């Protein structure tokens, strides 16, 4: 019965989107963090999503439904940290520079909106599947 698999599929999507929201929160929180060296500066993190297709492509006779979302990991942005001249800052290096994070707040806010919309869609799908299953279980009454 594939209707039950909808809970797994939508659940995996909700997990992935909440990780994305978590990472966005971390990025926004550290948008103004500074460090003494470019290496120590905070770098924006982004999650990598992939479809759970491995076991399905190995066996194409499997049931049609049920391709969930898989978290491949979190990558750090390769953009250069922002170098600012602040000689009075306690973290400033010998030349008087501090290195700010490379977080782009606009990008993070759009990520946040997109993640919350996708999460909502998955919740709707799960609610609909639950309704259909409940109606089916009362069939003939």
């Amino acid at each position, binding site marked *: 019965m594939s209707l039950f698999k909808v809970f797994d599929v939508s659940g995996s999507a909700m997990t992935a989107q909440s990780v994305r929201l978590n990472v966005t929160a971390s990025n926004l929180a550290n948008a103004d963090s500074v460090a003494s060296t470019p290496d120590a500066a905070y770098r924006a993190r982004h999650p990598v999503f992939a479809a759970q297709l491995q076991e399905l492509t190995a066996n194409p006779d499997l049931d049609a439904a049920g391709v969930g979302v898989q978290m491949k990991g979190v990558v750090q942005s390769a953009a250069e940290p922002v170098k600012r001249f602040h000689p009075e800052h306690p973290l400033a290096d010998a030349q008087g520079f501090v290195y700010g994070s490379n977080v782009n707040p606009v990008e993070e806010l759009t990520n946040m909106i997109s993640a919350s919309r996708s999460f909502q869609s998955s919740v709707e*799908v799960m609610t609909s599947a639950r309704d259909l299953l409940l109606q089916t279980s009362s069939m003939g009454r």
Partner: protein
Amino acid sequence: MFKNVFGIHERSLLLSGERVGVLASNIANADTPHYKARDIDFQSVLAGEQSTPGALPMARTDTAHLAAGPGGELPTLAELKYRIPFQPSLDGNTVEAPVEQAKFAENQVRYQASLMMINRRISSIENALSGQ
């Protein structure tokens, strides 16, 4: 007598149930790079069913027997069609959330319609049996 009591609705219910899962996968992977949206071609499967009205399922008394053709099995992953997007995204994803949500809603109505037909059939048989 009760061999084919629910007619096409029994198969339609199974197929819509399967399609819920396919469309849920599409919506779940709306943000996955390189994911291609897929769907069951309801019309062609239905046409396959109707070309063999009242076909009885073939009895398989041995595991080596082949499965019956039309009217037998539900479509497998390999038989799913790929959706042609109106505007594919740069990351290779072809899921368009509004399209998928519309299809999901349509499929939900189909499922409920089949369920209703089956329920009506059950109550009419109950009426006939109670002899009133």
